[in-house]
């Protein structure tokens, strides 16, 4: 972390391994770009997480790339990327103007590709590497790395030896074994986990009989997925000791609190920014107000605070409205 914080009534700072953040709220990869500097002061963010970059230049998927659903959207953008040279010479210098920790999100189709990219991005101005391992692994028949504990361990080990930067692994929710996969990422050297990416989904236009997305399938995000990802964060937090950064449907400070209670140390905000461009700073303000109201001195006091003792039957049954 970069600058000394004055003592506010609530201490919002969080520690993610070696990295200290002013507060636990940051954008989700792929939902943030320079345009937002006209909306919010980037100096206020816990961190800046950039859109996933690939080494090669990529065009992305055919249109349409996004379709809205009730309380969510499905995207199949396809990681268009201008490649690493452009990233190093154009994108990084722009963000060096801010003291906020910068997280570079990377993706590659092979274990070696991931490692090489992480090494190339271990440069001044990058504070952490977020490995988006939800993308298809061409060595495993296109199955995403994060769908298997073994593949996750393999790519994490390789990334670990390629960079000294804090290493975040972004898991996919499209698995029945997220806790197992989280544990294998931790054992292989991850410094933190991002739980999680989008949920594989589909929509068909009943007028044209065609898929609503050019790519046929895409990833669901937004409030619709929050109960599912919350469960996954809770499951992962029970088995790992490294910090978890929650990501899925967060659009209010209460959502952030819910995730921290489930065990998250920080949160990422994605789709909400499309609805309220200042969502991230609004959530930071709301988190401070929540802690103030509840007289919680440090936001870290929320982490894992959910009370799961066997509920007392009398506690939960409804009685009369004014009994």
């Amino acid at each position, binding site marked *: 972390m970069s600058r000394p914080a004055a003592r506010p009534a609530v201490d919002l700072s969080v520690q993610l391994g070696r990295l200290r953040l002013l507060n636990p709220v940051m954008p989700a990869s792929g939902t943030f770009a320079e345009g937002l500097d006209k909306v919010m002061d980037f100096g206020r963010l816990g961190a800046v997480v950039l859109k996933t970059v690939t080494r090669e230049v990529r065009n992305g998927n055919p249109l349409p790339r996004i379709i809205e659903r*009730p309380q*969510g959207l499905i995207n199949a953008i396809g990681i*268009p990327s201008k490649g690493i040279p452009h990233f190093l010479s154009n994108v990084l210098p722009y963000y060096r103007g801010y003291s906020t920790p910068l997280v570079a999100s990377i993706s590659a189709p092979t274990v070696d590709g991931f490692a090489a990219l992480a090494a190339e991005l271990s440069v001044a101005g990058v504070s952490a590497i977020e490995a988006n391992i939800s993308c298809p692994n061409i060595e495993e028949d296109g199955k995403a790395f994060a769908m298997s504990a073994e593949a996750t361990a393999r790519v994490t080990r390789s990334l670990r030896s390629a960079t000294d930067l804090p290493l975040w692994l972004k898991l996919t929710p499209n698995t029945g074994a997220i806790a197992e996969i989280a544990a294998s990422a931790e054992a292989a050297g991850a410094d933190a986990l991002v739980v999680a990416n989008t949920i594989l989904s589909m929509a068909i236009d009943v007028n044209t009989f065609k898929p609503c997305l050019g790519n046929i399938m895409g990833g669901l995000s937004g409030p619709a997925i929050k109960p599912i990802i919350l469960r996954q964060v809770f499951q992962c937090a029970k088995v790992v000791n490294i910090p978890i950064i929650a990501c899925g449907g967060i659009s209010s400070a209460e959502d952030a609190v819910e995730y921290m209670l489930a065990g998250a140390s920080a949160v990422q905000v994605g789709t909400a920014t499309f609805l309220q461009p200042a969502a991230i700073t609004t959530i930071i303000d709301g988190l401070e107000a929540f802690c103030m109201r509840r007289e919680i001195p440090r936001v870290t006091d929320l982490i894992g605070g959910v009370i799961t003792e066997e509920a007392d039957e009398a506690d939960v049954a409804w009685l009369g409205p004014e009994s």
Partner: protein
Amino acid sequence: MRGSAIIPLPRRDVAVPRVPAEDATAPNSTWRPTIVAEAGEVIRHEAVNAEYRHIVVACGPEAAAARPGQFFQLLCPQPPGEQPFLRRPMSVYGVDADAGTVEFLYKITGAGTRGLATLRVGDRLDVMGPLGVGFHLDPTWKQIVTVGRGAGLATLAPLIEAARANGTNVTAVVSARRLDLLVRSSRFPSHGVDVVEVTDEEQTSGPANVERILRRSIAEGRCDALFTCGSSRLLRVLQRLAVEFNLPGQVALEQQMACGIGLCYCCVRDFNVDGQIVSRRVCWDGPVFDIREALP
């Protein structure tokens, strides 16, 4: 509406006040937003004809600074039984910085605009903007030609006003399916704007006839630049003429949008830049583009 009474201050979407400038957690204390999302009060809302509606919303100074060709993302209320989730892009139809208002002209086409139509005067509409790159107007141009069809007229109307404010004359070709659907903007200055109405029902709106009208303007030296919005067919006509007569031209394009501010890359279109096909975000690199580069 102009010069109307006190406009209430819009409510911002920030729930708690921002950290005060002297707080060390707000290091960049000189930073100020230039794009805001705010729940502005609906000041006026009425049908213009069977298809179009005109809505006027109170807004703060950032929104009221919108330029012709820019747009806003509107958070449409939910109409009964439907759930529009994303915002909807709408061109600025007019702003009044003194009154603190922004105006839109829209057509009801689906869930979002059906939701818009439920708004009553006094309700609030969350408008986010101004967004995108607007039209470039060269003050040395004496006369420009605009060609708009359908909702495209909403986009061109403030350009025409701005041109007149610069002392530039305008030939405004206005196209619609039927005469009763032509949007006759009361905002057009009475002098210096030559409105040419063409319609499908009169069979005057075909590309051939529009081309004839444009060729006449060009031949008479009344066309220093071309502007269009709302029709791919007409865009092709204008592109041909721009190349043939080496005229500058701009087009405002539409594309499905999610974020509206350059984050998501869902609104890309291909452009022909010096023979190379490049992909650009309509919301961020546009919606106004050089007419020669657009692929209709």
